């Protein structure tokens, strides 16, 4: 009713320019223009009508704003079926990173890797993680607790610092099935992947869940140093592929990739290895590989690393994500979160001792 009246009032305004002395009044209840009730604009009734008009406009404005904000709180559209995009990059592949010095951080310190190691070429995918969960549940290294996958962790040393959250030994969350943006499916027995997301990075996995995955297959999460050397090589480049970032180098905020066009600027994850120089239905990607051949070391999803931040128990996250601007994708940028934190923009990859 108010909306109708608002529209009608707009018409009333237009009419008032044509009828100089007399003007129509909008009946608030019926929402129609009534020329019979037109009166002098200075009369008290007309003044009241003016006030009503202002209230109606304000009401409309606030109602629309409220609707907009409420719509913002609605559940995200995450269940839409997606066509699987083949990138040609093998998520099972590992590369060897040699021991030795490298340029560390923004201020170009000397970093040193004592032992060579291997690291995954891509982030762990949804398909890989679903396969792991099925195996881990069978072997008992992870178990279901309600709608959560949990597993044992031996705990962190507690220092009693201000704002320090104690991470005790016990079962901790690996993956919550309650989050609608999880790309995994679970039929009560077996985990699967929502169609199209098989080769997207596994997200909404906690640090505990990431660590458990890597250890299940005989690996571990990379340390920050290992992660950075794998991303940067031995020179001082700020991005894995070189010195500047273009929109088609990585999945970042407002980078206009095809998935972003579907969903919005925040976008969605892209399949692992998507930025490899190939063209996908006319969308030409740049080759975003690191010097050692790793993909997605900038953008797409933040990656858990092994190191913990003593005193507050945050774990370091590296690489930037689809939700960050390009400058957050610089190699030395970091994020951190509690080990039980899970997010649609956080994933991981594993490292292991070099064979």
């Amino acid at each position: 009713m108010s909306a109708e009246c608002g529209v009608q009032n707009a018409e009333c305004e237009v009419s008032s320019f044509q009828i100089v002395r007399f003007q129509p009044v909008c009946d608030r209840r019926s929402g129609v223009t009534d020329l019979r009730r037109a009166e002098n604009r200075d009369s008290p009734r007309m003044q009241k009508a003016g006030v009503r008009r202002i209230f109606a406009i304000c009401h409309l404005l606030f109602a629309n704003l409220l609707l907009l904000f409420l719509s913002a709180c609605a559940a995200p559209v995450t269940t839409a079926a997606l066509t699987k995009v083949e990138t040609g990059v093998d998520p099972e592949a590992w590369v060897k990173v040699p021991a030795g010095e490298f340029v560390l951080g923004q201020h170009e310190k000397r970093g040193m890797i004592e032992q060579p190691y291997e690291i995954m070429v891509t982030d762990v995918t949804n398909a890989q993680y679903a396969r792991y969960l099925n195996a881990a549940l069978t072997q008992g290294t992870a178990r279901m607790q309600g709608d959560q996958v949990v597993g044992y962790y031996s705990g962190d040393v507690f220092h009693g610092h201000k704002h320090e959250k104690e991470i005790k030994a016990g079962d901790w969350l690996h993956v919550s099935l309650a989050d609608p943006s999880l790309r995994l499916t679970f039929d009560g027995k077996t985990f699967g992947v929502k169609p199209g997301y098989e080769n997207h990075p596994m997200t909404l996995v906690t640090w505990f869940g990431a660590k458990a995955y890597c250890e299940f297959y005989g690996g571990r999460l990379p340390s920050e140093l290992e992660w950075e050397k794998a991303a940067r090589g031995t020179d001082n480049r700020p991005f894995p592929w070189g010195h500047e970032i273009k929109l088609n180098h990585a999945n970042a905020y407002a980078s206009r990739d095809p998935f972003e066009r579907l969903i919005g600027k925040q976008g969605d994850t892209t399949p692992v290895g998507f930025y490899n120089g190939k063209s996908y239905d006319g969308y030409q990607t740049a080759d975003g590989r690191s010097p050692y051949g790793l993909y997605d070391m900038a953008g797409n999803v933040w990656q858990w690393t092994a190191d913990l931040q003593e005193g507050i128990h945050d774990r370091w996250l590296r690489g930037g994500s689809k939700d960050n601007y390009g400058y957050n994708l610089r190699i030395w940028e970091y994020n951190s979160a509690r080990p039980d934190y899970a997010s649609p923009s956080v994933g991981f990859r594993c490292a292991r001792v070099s064979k």
Partner: protein
Amino acid sequence: MNAIILRFNYLFRSTKGLVLVAIALISLVTAIWGMLSGPLKEWGISDVAVRLYGMKLVEAEREGRIIMLYHTIAMAVVAIETYLITALAPVKKEQQASINATITVGYTVSLIFGLAFGYFGHNFVFHGLFIFGQSLVFFAGVMLAVALWPWHPEYRVADAAYAHTRSGVSVERIALFVMAAATLGSALFGAIPGSLFGREFEVFLAEDIIRFPVKTPLQLAIIGHLHIMLTLIAIALTLIVGRWFDFKGRLHHWAMPLMIAGALIITAGVWAILVVRPIAHMIINVGSTPVLLASWLLVYFGWRKIIRVRLAAQKIQQPRLGQKLSALLHDPLKFGMLWQIIYMNFVVTAIGIFMAVRLKVIREWPLREEQIALTGHWHILAGIIATIILLLYADMTGLKEKARQWFGWIVIIASDIAFAAVSLFETKRLFVSEAGQQSLVDITMLITDAGLALTLVVLAALMVWRLADLFRGRGRWAKEAE
């Protein structure tokens, strides 16, 4: 030639001219450097701007560039406040001239060469000039503090309506002096660690190290420096606005000691962070309370005065509530200066207190979310300070009738809507999940950008008007010069 000299004298020797130049330079910097971030970056304008201006941006130097940009703008703001203080507080003419001249050379040299160094390749002579400019600003501050020395007999208060000590010393002047001295000390508090970090080129943004459980004394000093400088700029502006409103009477007697106590306690709290870190924040909070109280007293005084003057002009003897409200809102420039002080309590103070109280919740967020909240928080405070300066300048320059109404209300409404949207954006994790935030982010960003853009458009209009006025033989500038 004479015409140029006359205009030069107006722009660089009169208070209104000096303020205009500083605002114009800040506007220019905002217009050019604003292209490098926000929606213009998303639209690809920043790449065009970088090529067009021939900027040389090295990724690893981004933080350093930003800090230089902040400092160049901050120097100009400090200069504006200094011009206003030397105009509004009694100081000797020759002191006013030397302070204004020094700070003008200081901030312009700092601005020009700082930005040239930061964004157009590294000529280290330019970096030296950037530091030299800042040193001149500091030296002007020393001269200001000397000029404001409150215990000089000739500055004793003659009118008992203004806060004064038993011996007649102006308490407001003490407040200005304390503010100036605290600012000088706090500038050193940042400059010394800044020079140490600078020597090793290890620049950082405060929000980057917020979760480091152990911070070095130099890092603490930098964090303290940026907080206290913004606070002291806000305190100085409150004192300036108070003088602009001719703040006096009983409320003035209460407010000025509160302002002095608050400024001293906050400054002590910030400086103490190096030695008593666990309680430093408590000291700062204790000091903030009297400053806030003093600002509320000023707002109460100012709004009552606006209403009283307007009703007297309308010859209304016994006004109704609606008439009082109408009188309060009839002049958006005067109303707005004080309203922004109140509004700051909602979008800066309240959120700041909330986040401090609920830090346990905030620390459940990832670091990036906390950084966004912190960055939004101080950007809003800086933005509100800017809008108060704009409203004050527009009032000083004598905007009239419709231009006054449009300018005033657009600055107030557009900026406040933008600040509210930023507040929602920075605290979004309290009420929306990461997966569901897209529409909220889109809306808040759209509103923020639109609000800020509208504010900048009216600022640009004001600047164009003043520029056009300079081409008139006997324009407004000539009257202001007199």
